[in-house]
């Protein structure tokens, strides 16, 4: 499972250093695939709820999310315009710092259990880097990737806990995932209107 978590972490970090809309969206698919494989290796597939969760991760997060986001994308950001955490050395160093914090959290909370240390570290790093993408960028497209990265971290924490969700609740969680993606699609088509012109410092929400 550790290899799967390393691949998941790579899917979070690679788009940060090689920023492109297509790479970022495809990396979300890789994250979804890794999450579904983590579920497969860490839980017994012995109840309809777990089967539903696996299907949700594989079909929705790994396949539907990247397909739908790429399909809904309007005019793509020019390669130089798209960035997930900024392009300066300081901003990229911050990503490494957050990775270190994530691993620190894993060591504290995992308390020597290798599997837990790896899983908590990856989850905490995903949450922190996702938040950085949302907070640091004014481009809604980058924030959208940040939201999905953050959600990936939440799912990893969910996989860590030994829960057995009742089937109707798991069904609701899966349906919610689809609803969330569809709602984001509504915004995606309006992103060109939302993005403030580069170089401006327009104050939002005032009149």
């Amino acid at each position, binding site marked *: 499972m550790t290899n799967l978590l390393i691949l998941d972490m790579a899917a979070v970090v690679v788009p940060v250093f090689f920023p492109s809309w297509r790479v970022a969206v495809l990396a979300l698919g890789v994250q979804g695939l890794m999450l579904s494989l983590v579920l497969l290796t860490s839980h017994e597939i012995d109840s309809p709820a777990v089967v539903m969760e696996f299907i949700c991760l594989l079909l929705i997060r790994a396949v539907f999310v990247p397909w739908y986001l790429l399909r809904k994308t309007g005019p793509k950001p020019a390669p130089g315009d798209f960035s997930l955490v900024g392009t300066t050395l300081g901003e990229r160093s911050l990503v490494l710092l957050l990775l270190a914090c994530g691993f620190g959290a894993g060591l504290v*909370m995992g308390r020597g*259990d290798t599997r*837990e240390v790896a899983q908590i570290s990856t989850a905490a790093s995903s*949450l922190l880097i996702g*938040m950085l993408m*949302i907070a640091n960028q004014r481009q*809604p497209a980058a*924030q959208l990737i940040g*939201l999905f990265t*953050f*959600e990936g*971290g*939440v799912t990893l*924490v*969910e996989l*860590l*806990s*030994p*829960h*057995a*969700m*009742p089937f*109707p*609740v798991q069904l*609701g*969680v899966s349906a*919610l995932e689809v*609803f*969330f993606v569809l*709602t984001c699609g*509504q*915004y995606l088509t*309006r992103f060109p*209107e*939302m993005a403030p012109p580069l170089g401006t410092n327009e104050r*939002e*929400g*005032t*009149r």
Partner: protein
Amino acid sequence: MIALACAVVPVLGAIVLLIAPRQREVAAKSVLILCAVIVLVAAVITTATRPVGSVTYLAGQYFVLDATSALFLSLIAIVFFGISIYPRKRLSNGSTQARDEFVVIRSLFFLASCVLAVLCNHLVAMWVLLEVGTLTIAPLIFFNRGPVAIRASWKYLKFSVLGLGFNLVGLMCLARGMGGAHGEHAVTFFLDELQALSTLGEKIWWELGLALMVFGLGTKLGLAPMYAWLPDAYDEAPPVVTTMLAAVQFNCVLLFLFRQVGLLRSFDPDLVSIELIGMGVLSIAISSFHIVRADNYKRLIAYASINHAGTIAVGLGMGKNAAYGVVLYVVSNALVKSVLFLTCGNIKDHYGTKQIASLRGLIRVMPFSGWAFMLGTFALLGFAPFGSFLGEIIILSNMAEGGYLVLFLFLCVMLTVNLVATGRALFPMIWGDTPEDEVEVKEPVWSIASSAFYILVLVSLGIYTPEPVTSLLQEVAATLDGK
């Protein structure tokens, strides 16, 4: 089962509108009112016929009707009824009924998700329903509007997803604490089963979980430090949507917080006090600063909402005797915000601006809306005889009795600052000299029907609260201490 009808009826109404494309433009508003009336009647019957102290489980174990769910169900039904009778032309802020039907369908689904969330007995299911409500209402903030509204809506969605995400992480930490490292213990999210547990397992996990849960819900309530979405979303959304956010969704999230705080306090009565008081104090201080600087009346009320959320958090953090004041304040707060945000819609429609400086003598130009706005402002500031006055007094007196003197002083200073700042901004807008060319608007009485309805309930809460309502409020207050 009547309680569940409160969720089924709006869904049926929305489905009828979806499958009847030819008639739906005409029927949208009628269906909205009909559903709101049925939900209100069903909620009142459910609450009135519930024996004191009883807990009834519905649909297996997934839903529960206890004092807390009964109170919030009635509150949501009252607020939504007022929204439904708000004049047609302001539903979507658009000019055609075709736009209204979109708002009505989403509003009905939103109401259903909120009712189910209020009745829910499973923490993760409740979380799912709150997120469904968020996703349903988010597009209504920018519907038929420009880039500023789209940005406000996107900000709302971002903060909501983050807040609820943190809350879910908190719940999962709780589960990890309960279940142990290798799942050796049973894990549940059903509230009644959680309350029956003797321990929540490893302390490090459930303490982390608790912190994340409170922080996440604080974000969703608009508490500092994650409050930035609230003024933008409330300011940019159409009046009915703002009211749904401020008085319906806010209370659903608050109920979720009540449930979580009540649950964890049954294990340790002093839990989360410091966190809640800290977030509350910070929210009150920041919002007061913004209220002093406000030049837009709708934004001012939005900041006052953050201020009120802060007061609720402080009261909740104090626990014990302040709990009754908190519950009374929560009920009043929902009605005050409904009056003000709906009246703001009337004012904006007439003047075409939200700038305070452009408005003078509202009470002479728009007598009905002016009176509603004036009474709403009095209730906002905590004047007698409104319920908010009584709630605030109970919280403050318990603060002084409990020895929280610094906090008491701080709140008194902030209340004074808010009173002066709000009065300085809004009183000239209400009573100031009217420009000579400004003529009185002939407002139909029904244009403030919903506000009048809310004010009536508010005054009755402050002057005379019937015994069944008082005992319901007391029952809810007792659950906040984990009793």
